[in-house]
Every structure is written in C-alpha cells, then in structure tokens.
C-alpha cells in the first residue's frame, strides 16, 4: 500500500498551486537537506518529464529551493524561496533533462557544501506524497509508510552490528532492512525501516558508532 494515512489524502496543508509539483517537490528538497545534514551551499537539480515541462508554472523550482531551506509545505515564505536562497548565497541550478524517467514527476538533486555532497533521486507520486528512489548511486526501496534511517557507512565487519545493537538497546524494532555496497571495503548503505520514531538522541548515538559516515532519518 503506497498510502497508509487519511492525511495523505486529506492533506497536506500547503501553499499552492500543485500538490505533486509544489508540496511534493518541497518534501523532496527537504529530504535531501536532511540527508546532507545541513544547509547546502550549492544545488544542481535535474528535472524529468512533467517536472521538466511544467516546473516554472507549478513553482517546482521555488518549492525544491524551499525544501532545501528546510521549509514545510505550508511555509508562507515558500514562493520567495529562490530569493531567500540567493540572499543566503546558495547557488541553485535547474537542468531540464530530456532522458526518460520511471515516474513522470522525477527530480535528481546533487547538493553539497565545502566538506561533502550527496546525490538523491525523488519521485512525487501524487497528493504531496514522495518517495526517495536513489541515494548516492544506491537504489532504495522505501515504502514510505514507516520511519526510515539511512546510514552511509564503510563496508567493514561490525558496522551493521554496531547499528542494530544501538537500536535493540533502545527497543526500536526493525521492520525491513537492506544493505548495499559499491565494492568490498568501500562505501555502503544501510536502509532500515523501523516501527517507532527514532529520536535525536538515538540518531546521535548511531552517528558516533563505528564505521558510520553519514546518517539521516525519513519520517513517514
């Protein structure tokens, strides 16, 4: 089931004009900011299909920028997000990509600052609901119905155990888990869907665990 709450249907409360192209875009931008862990200094945003054809009319551009600035879908500053980003010296570039995408509302965001960057692909599936389908070259299969923790780590023994040990200690149940790596001993990604919301204290503890590089959570 893609949608699991009545508030996915009656909601979100948002600044117009489009739930897929404005509210959904803002949520993709916000997920990217969360995964970077801080405000980006630059962003290159590739837009596909309906996003590419109509982004100016729908305000997809300011909504993605608003998300990168950390705005919620109903933030009254939303339509001024591009100007606000400019004032903060954040450079945002939009590229209309003609390549075919699996979903008509697809955006690929490369964002970063001096120390690090991430690349994320998000799709806006309707009514403001979004899914993150790719992170740093790793395919994701997130249902979006449960809170999820994404952990970039080094492919070393003990990395997974150190994470699951912390979750067990805090009585967080894992509903679904995937581990992926680029090559032996290289970058790897853990995707963990959990039943309970994970608070910041636990996130901090996870971040300090062995072989963990970057961590982020997505709240359903």
């Amino acid at each position, binding site marked *: 089931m893609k949608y699991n709450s*009545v*508030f996915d*249907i009656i909601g*979100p*409360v948002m600044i117009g*004009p489009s739930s*897929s192209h404005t509210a959904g875009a803002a949520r993709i931008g916000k997920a990217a900011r969360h995964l970077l862990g801080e405000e980006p200094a630059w962003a290159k945003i590739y837009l596909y299909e309906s996003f590419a054809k*109509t982004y100016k009319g729908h305000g997809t551009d300011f909504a993605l920028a608003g998300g990168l600035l950390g705005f919620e879908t109903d933030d009254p500053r939303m339509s001024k997000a591009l100007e606000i980003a400019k004032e903060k010296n954040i450079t945002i570039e939009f590229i209309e990509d003609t390549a075919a995408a699996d979903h*008509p509302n697809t955006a690929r965001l490369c964002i970063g600052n001096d120390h690090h960057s991430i690349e994320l692909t998000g799709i806006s599936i309707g009514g403001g609901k979004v899914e993150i389908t790719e992170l740093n070259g790793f395919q994701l299969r997130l249902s979006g119905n449960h809170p999820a923790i994404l952990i970039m780590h080094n492919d070393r023994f003990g990395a997974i155990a150190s994470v699951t040990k912390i979750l067990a200690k805090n009585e967080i149940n894992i509903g679904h888990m995937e581990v992926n790596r680029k090559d032996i001993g290289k970058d790897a990604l853990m995707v963990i869907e959990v039943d309970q919301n994970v608070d910041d204290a636990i996130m901090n503890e996870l971040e300090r665990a062995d072989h963990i590089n970057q961590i982020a959570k997505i709240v359903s």
Partner: protein
Amino acid sequence: MFRTVEELVKIAEKENILISEVMIRQEMEVKETSRKEVFSQMEKNLEVMENAIEEALEGVNSVTGLTGGDAVLVQKYMKEKTPLSGNLMLDAVSKAMGTNEVNAAMGTICATPTAGSAGCVPGTLFAVKNQLNPTREQMIRFLFTSGAFGFVVANNAFISGAAGGCQAEVGSAGAMASAAIVEMAGGTPQQSADAFAITLKNMLGLVCDPVAGLVEVPCVKRNAAGSSLAIVSADLALAGVTSRIPCDEVIGAMYRIGKQMPSSLRETGEGGLADTPTGRLLKEKIFGMTV
C-alpha cells in the same frame, strides 16, 4: 485495513458504523494515536479549508491574471438573480472554484486529494452544510469519509494528473465529495459507494491539459464540474439509483484509462487545451516562449 470500497462498505455494515468511523478507527490503529488526536488534526485541515473559502469570497487573483474573481461573480449573481441550477448547487460551485483560485494565487489550501482538485470537497461541504445543518463533528467526519474513498483510489489507481490525467484528480475529488455528502445526508455506506461510482464514471477519460502547465486553466472550472456532479450523484444515490458497475471496477477502469493516456495529456502542458491557439498564445505571453 480495507483495500477496496467493497471491504470498506462491508466493515461499516457489519459493525453498523459510518464510513467515516471506519476511517477514523483505521487511522488510530495505523498511527497508534488517540481519537482526539486524529480529530484535532482533521479539524485543522477543516479550518484551512474554511479560511481559503473566506479568502476566495473576498476576491483573489493569480500572478498571471489567468484566474481569480469568478467565485465572487457567482456569489453576486446568486444574490441578484435566481440561478437556474439552484442556490445550493451554485454555492458549492462558487466555493469549489474559489478554493482553487486561492490555490492558483499561491495561497494556503488543503490538498483533497491534490491541490489542483482541492475545491470539490470543501466547496460541497460548505454549501450542503447550509441545508443539512451538521454539527462541527459531522463536518470533520465529512472529511474522513472523503478520505476513506480517496485512500482506496490512491492505493489501487492514482490521484495525480501526471500519472492518470484529470480523471484521477478532479474525478477522484468529486467522487469523494459525493460519498461524503451521502453520509452527511443520512444515506447508507452502500449509497455512498454508489454516489462515488456515479461521479467517477462520468469523469472517466478526462485529461490533464493545463494551459502553460499552470494549475489555472482549466483546473479552476474543472472543480466547478467536479463539485456540481458530486451533488447530482449524491442525490441520485439518495433517491435509490445504483451504479450498475461496482465502485471498485470503476476505479479499475479509471486506472486502465490513465495508463493508456499519452504523456501529452498527463500534466505536461503539451496537449489538449494547452495546445490550442489561445493556449499557446497565453503560454507565450506568460513565459515569453513558444510551445
């Protein structure tokens, strides 16, 4: 958890509860939260809808100037003349269009199920309320009933124009509103399902062809169509008219039709009304480029 309208209606009939109650109980279970919490979150959405209608009736205009002011025109006409389609109907149409005028003007709205179709549910709610005199709780329940039907559509088909055309947006929104009107008027769960099916059947095949890719033309007036059809279908169902094709099969048909729609008719602003001489001219005026 219900997956189909048939299951939804069965649960309501078996437990002898309203559709809205089925949705409320499911939400409490999924979110592991209290009835009070679920109600108060929905009441906030209701307030947003109410405020958007108020804003619309004072008159709004979009940045492009393509839309705005029609809700006010209709209200004025209702006061000065005797509308052929009746006051309740035109009140719903005016409030539905008004909500979408606020949306086009980048005001604050509640997506139901989407922003482009945000007018149908609140437009009909705030019109039928003047005749049915519901309690505040019943008004909130109207949104849960709408949501229950939208939930089935979203999980079995689609609710976005980019995925399935306008039939998925205004089609779903109008149908959701029909089902909720029936419950508020005292109809049975099955009558809600019939009203939903009748509206969606009449929206099948509707394409998403926004001029210049903007959620303005024809979106605002499509909400007039969705909201008026919602009231007609609700009346038909309350009169005892049933849908020959079951609700879930209508949703299935909507899904297959959407899958067959070319991308030019799914919110790319390339086909249909967007690709008329005037549509192209408006786009050129707004963005300074040709289609």
